[in-house]
């Protein structure tokens, strides 16, 4: 009942026209950038950060969440209509979605994807609502050693996503190290300034996020030379048939559960969820031979899974302050930027924000369903936007945004330099998300380390003698060890 009364409070927040506007803007932007080439939700949120700087924290987070799950709807369009997944989490959708589109059933595929996504998004929000508060309440009993170990788990888990564990861990460490530049807030002295006075305040999260996600992405996409796909397929009859519904209903249910559970686990996001959902559907299907040639369950399962995962990833972010995906890492940085302390106290100290965001997710998913069913054809026209016209505008927005946050050209130089670094990271497969997460979590990690060792009179044993901390350390070791052991027994994985 407690959750219900809080939810009512959340809806009361959302009833204010301003916050409803933020929600609408978020899902619209998400839908659009999901369909546009070469820009994903992390980049969009990073680029929009400066616009919200110093503004309304609740509204901004409502908008960012909207961008995140809205992009999952938008990405579906490209994978079904042109077989070019806008997001890695919609790769599986394109296998059967595009085949359905070629058979003239693009409308039905898009319709099932939208309805499945709506169901999964709504059920996922329900899960978030029920799971996050008790998790946060349990985490209130965490002391500094538990927090230290928790940050280790979060960083290690996120390192698994993308270019491989070693590269991910390297980037996480680089992020942590960059965060030590400037004044040490506890000791009061400066470090790693190398005689440069402008480094006194350290490297700003906002500048780094815009540089790596914005500039770096643009440079990498320019190199690939993104050409607009030919959209020859027309979208009509968006309502799926009765048979489509019957074939998809359990796929949506299974996808939702798989997606949510995987989303909650740190490090395993929407992409892995959609892969597993597809594999499960193929396994349980009575007609596995249809998969890859246009099976509607192959669209329904992964689409439900990626939406439920996007929502599930918000559970650890809100309850523990440990994000489960790259996009939630940027959102966590935004929370800190607004002067809020992420973690279990967020539910107590900023109840309006958390429950406002949760309420907005119910409304946002409904808006997306209403937008997608009648307007999918119109959004499909976005696929014709040429990247050559888009990226100069993105660059101009990055420049204005970064300058505006401190009115300083120094920040623009930092942005340019890290933009180039971000390009090389993309090119050589070094993931960006762990670096950004390291930068965001370093103050928490170092404070927890110092407090723990003060408690233990300088002994590191405190991290393994306290049971929860020890369990988290073991989990960290498992995250590192399991892929290494799996590599020893590796066999090629069959997707089709």
């Amino acid at each position, binding site marked *: 009942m407690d959750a219900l009364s809080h939810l009512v409070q959340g809806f009361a927040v959302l009833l204010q026209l301003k916050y409803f506007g933020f929600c609408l803007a978020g899902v619209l932007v998400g839908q659009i950038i999901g369909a546009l080439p070469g820009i994903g939700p992390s980049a969009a949120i990073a680029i929009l950060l400066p*616009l919200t700087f110093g503004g309304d924290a609740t509204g901004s987070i409502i908008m960012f969440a909207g961008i995140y799950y809205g992009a999952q709807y938008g990405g579906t369009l490209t994978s079904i209509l042109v077989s070019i997944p806008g997001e890695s989490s919609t790769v599986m959708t394109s296998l059967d979605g595009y085949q359905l589109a070629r058979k003239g059933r693009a409308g039905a595929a898009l319709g099932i994807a939208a309805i499945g996504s709506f169901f999964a998004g709504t059920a996922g929000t329900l899960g978030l609502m029920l799971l996050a508060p008790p998790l946060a309440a349990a985490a209130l009993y965490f002391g500094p050693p538990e927090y230290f170990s928790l940050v280790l788990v979060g960083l290690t888990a996120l390192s698994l996503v993308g270019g491989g564990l*070693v*590269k991910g*861990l*390297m980037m996480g*460490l*680089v992020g*942590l*190290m960059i965060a*030590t530049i400037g004044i*040490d807030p*506890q*000791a009061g*002295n400066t*470090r*790693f300034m*190398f005689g440069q006075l402008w480094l006194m305040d350290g490297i700003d999260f906002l500048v780094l996020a815009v540089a790596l996600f914005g*500039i770096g992405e*643009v*440079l990498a996409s*320019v*190199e*690939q*030379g993104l050409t607009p796909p030919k959209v020859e397929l027309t979208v009509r009859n968006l309502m799926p048939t009765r048979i489509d519904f019957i074939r998809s209903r359990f796929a949506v249910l299974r996808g939702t559960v798989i997606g949510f559970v995987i989303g909650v686990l740190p490090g395993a996001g929407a992409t892995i969820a959609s892969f597993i959902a597809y594999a499960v559907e193929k396994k349980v299907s009575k007609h596995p031979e249809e998969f890859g040639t246009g099976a509607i369950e192959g669209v329904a399962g992964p689409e439900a899974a990626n939406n439920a995962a996007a929502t599930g990833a918000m559970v650890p972010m809100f309850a523990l302050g440990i994000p489960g995906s790259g996009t939630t890492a940027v959102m966590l940085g935004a929370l800190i930027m607004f002067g809020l302390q992420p973690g279990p106290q967020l539910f107590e100290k900023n109840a309006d924000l958390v429950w406002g965001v949760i309420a907005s997710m119910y409304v946002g998913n409904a808006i997306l369903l209403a937008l997608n069913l009648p307007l999918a054809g119109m959004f499909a026209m976005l696929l014709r936007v040429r990247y*050559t*016209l888009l*990226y*100069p*505008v993105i*660059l*101009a*927005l990055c*420049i*204005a945004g970064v*300058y*505006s946050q401190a*009115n300083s*050209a120094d920040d*623009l*130089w930092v*942005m*340019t330099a890290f*933009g*180039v670094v971000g*390009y*090389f*990271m993309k*090119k*050589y*497969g*070094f993931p960006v998300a762990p670096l950004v997460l390291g930068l965001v979590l370093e103050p928490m*990690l*170092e404070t927890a*380390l*110092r*407090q723990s*060792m*003060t408690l233990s*009179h*300088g002994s590191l044993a405190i991290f393994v003698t306290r049971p929860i901390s020890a369990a988290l350390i073991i989990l960290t070791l498992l995250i590192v060890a399991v892929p290494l052991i799996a590599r020893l027994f590796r066999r090629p994985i069959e997707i089709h």
Partner: protein
Amino acid sequence: MKVRGELVAGVLCLLFGVLWIATASGLPYMGEFAPGSGFLPLWLGVCLVALSGVHVLSCLRRQAPHMPAGHWRKVLAVAIGLIGCVAVIEPLGFVVAVAAYLLFLLRVVEKEPWSTSLGVTVGAIGVLFALFRVWLHVPLPKGPWGF
């Protein structure tokens, strides 16, 4: 090609780690009980050096896969243009510097027709100016001409 790039990246990370270890060694390691300013950075440096070492070794053991050549000249043009734009943004002002950069990207790099280049530039600058200056009251850099 890719392995060579990854190798260089690994060596750079290794050097970054060495730099952190060297600098952190000059900072207090332990206070009374709690770690000093040098404790965490030192161990972060050590971990980075170790992981970079593993990465470099695995690069040396792998065969270089063929990488299709991308539009690297374009990347260079976009990056150099960005450096130029940042260099002149305070003396010339946001509007002139960024408009010139956009025109350069659209007309010179992407070879768009003049009409498209001008249209996108004017539209983007107009929207950004309205958004940041008029709506958010952010003082974007002004040139000698007052905008």
